[in-house]
């Protein structure tokens, strides 16, 4: 890597305290916490798309919200272009949250919810400019808003400026969201499930739009999704999360082609494939993701893991290199741990 990463996340942990009952106070039980994100590290290069994938409750959304300051990190640090977010300038290069929020933008899942129903499209797209005191004159502001709208595919922009969100379709709203992110010309876009509420044909359009932005503007995108079916079309790298941790991370093609972690394998095997000639036998994990309050000891996936061994109950695996940039957190994967326990890993279970 010759370029410096635009975003670096180091050992990020986010915990939410649980409300204590009267009984807990009386018995002086220590406050319990939900560990939403646990020791997550990754980086993102300029122009790169990193997909953060996993089921609900795995912590992927919490990461995005924490990055943009909508949640508070319990531990760890976030560096934006080498500057610590919210850090003390005395300890090295730092960036304020306010400045970060100018360079990084978030877009949410639900295009019906993420636009103020009472505001006009003009107000919504111009809001970032107002907040950051950019574009002093009215004309300048209008000019930038129009450019952003057109770049987001709402042409001619004049048709949209005076409208309100409820007059637009889901796809159009998501384009407005994108426009309001583009108006500040950000370097980083945190896209939290931007496609999951949209119909198939609309979804493709929005995905292509994001893809185009990355190519034309070199915006880096952290793409949060539960849909492993779509990442191949978009992401350069893929990180799979389970219960607050990244269990596997690597170039998208490598992970999809040769998934190492048993969870990734299972997850990939259950993604429906629109090809009736390719019906496979899915690896269906039984039960449900456990409650993040009482995390299992050892590898947190072991209670549901089809190949878990005794050691998995005790040792929590680190995210270790397999080959090239492909990393896995599993004791049983060769290269990921010192021993050759991986020999026990059946490799045929994901193929039909």
């Amino acid at each position: 890597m010759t370029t410096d990463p635009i975003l670096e996340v180091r050992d990020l942990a986010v915990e939410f305290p649980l409300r204590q009952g009267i009984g807990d106070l009386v018995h002086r039980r220590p406050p319990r916490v939900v560990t939403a994100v646990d020791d997550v590290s990754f980086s993102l290069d300029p122009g790169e798309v990193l997909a953060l994938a996993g089921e609900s409750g795995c912590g992927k959304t919490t990461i995005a919200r924490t990055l943009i300051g909508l949640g508070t990190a319990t531990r760890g640090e976030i560096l934006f272009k080498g500057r610590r977010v919210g850090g003390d300038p005395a300890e090295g290069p730092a960036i304020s949250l306010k400045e970060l929020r100018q360079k990084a933008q978030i877009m949410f899942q639900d295009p019906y919810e993420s636009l103020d129903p009472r505001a006009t499209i003009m107000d919504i797209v111009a809001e970032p400019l107002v907040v950051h005191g950019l574009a002093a004159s009215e004309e300048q502001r209008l000019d930038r808003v129009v450019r952003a709208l057109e770049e987001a595919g709402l042409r001619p922009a004049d048709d949209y400026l005076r409208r309100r969100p409820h007059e637009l379709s889901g796809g159009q709203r998501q384009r407005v969201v994108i426009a309001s992110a583009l108006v500040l010309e950000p370097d980083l876009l945190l896209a939290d499930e931007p496609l999951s509420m949209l119909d198939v044909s609309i979804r493709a359009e929005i995905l292509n739009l994001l893809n185009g932005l990355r190519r034309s503007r070199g915006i880096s995108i952290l793409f949060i999704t539960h849909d492993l079916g779509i990442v191949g079309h978009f992401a350069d790298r893929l990180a799979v999360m389970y219960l607050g941790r990244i269990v596997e991370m690597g170039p998208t093609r490598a992970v999809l082609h040769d998934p190492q972690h048993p969870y990734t394998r299972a997850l990939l095997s259950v993604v429906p494939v629109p090809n009736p000639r390719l019906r496979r036998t899915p690896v269906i994990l039984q039960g449900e993701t456990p409650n993040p309050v009482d995390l299992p000891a050892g590898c947190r996936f072991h209670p549901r893991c089809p190949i878990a061994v005794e050691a998995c109950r005790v040792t929590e695996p680190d995210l270790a290199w397999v080959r090239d940039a492909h990393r896995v957190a599993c004791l049983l994967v060769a290269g990921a741990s010192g021993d050759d326990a991986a020999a026990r890993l059946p490799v045929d279970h994901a193929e039909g």
Partner: protein
Amino acid sequence: MSRAQAPRRGALRRGRRALGRNKLGAFGAILVLTAFFLAVCAPLLTQYAPTDVIRDAAGHGMTFAPPWEHGPLGTDDAGRDVWTQLVYGARISLTVAVLAGFIAMFIGSTVGITAGFVGGRADTGLMRVTDVLLVIPDLPLMLVLIATLRQMDLHVSPLAVLIVVIGLLYWTSTARLIRSQVLTVKERQFVDRSRAIGAGRIHIVRRRILPQIMPLIVVNTVLILSTAILVESGLAFLGFGDPTQPSWGTMLNFAFDRSAITNGAWWFYLPPGIAIVWVVLGFALLGNVMEERLNPRLAGHHLEGGKDMVSVQDVTEA
């Protein structure tokens, strides 16, 4: 009289839909406007003063003169013109209700927004106070307070006492309502988006939260006004109005205490009651129509209107 504003609001809103939206709203507006018209134009609508005693040809006071002897609404036990009292009473009733309503609304909105937006201890504390006030039976509490204040020789008008007491007690349901609305709005994604853009607290409250809350405040004010009219009339009926400035409630108090009923003087006890129902109904209907008008998203579950097609959900809402 009840403080159960929230459920009733919903119920009325739906009720309104059943009868057609604009007709009922217009009806409510007409009721309210006529009442204000009476109040404002009182001196033009009658040739008497409320305290004038009507005398017959022989110079005797006409007590309990029926409408066919003295129009349009006859006289009361002291021979005063009922119509005159009615139109001047509108002034008193509406003034007390409007002032008390605004006090209640101001306290309620402030408490609600503060509790909802600040959260934490401030929220807990304010809501504790609200809950306690909500449970204490309102009429006895008001009566005790009014009696006490009157005993304290404060040299203020009894009407001022009424206004303050009603205003100080009827903000609780508003505060709860607005707090819960603020909490809902605060959690909505477009507020998160504003925060994520870097907007400060003041910007968010002013530009994102208040605009969503305003319609609720306005509508609730109108509905509180209808409650305030009822409460004022009740207190006045129990004898806590200002006998020198009779409101509709005070008129009913006189009618009841001075045997208008046993004398069959229906022209004395029917008109003020009808006037009260008139205005209360008017405010209630108006409030609910305004609610719909001011809030385009009220009916707006996001399945409605947003999708490109008329889906089943859309049409089943009809």
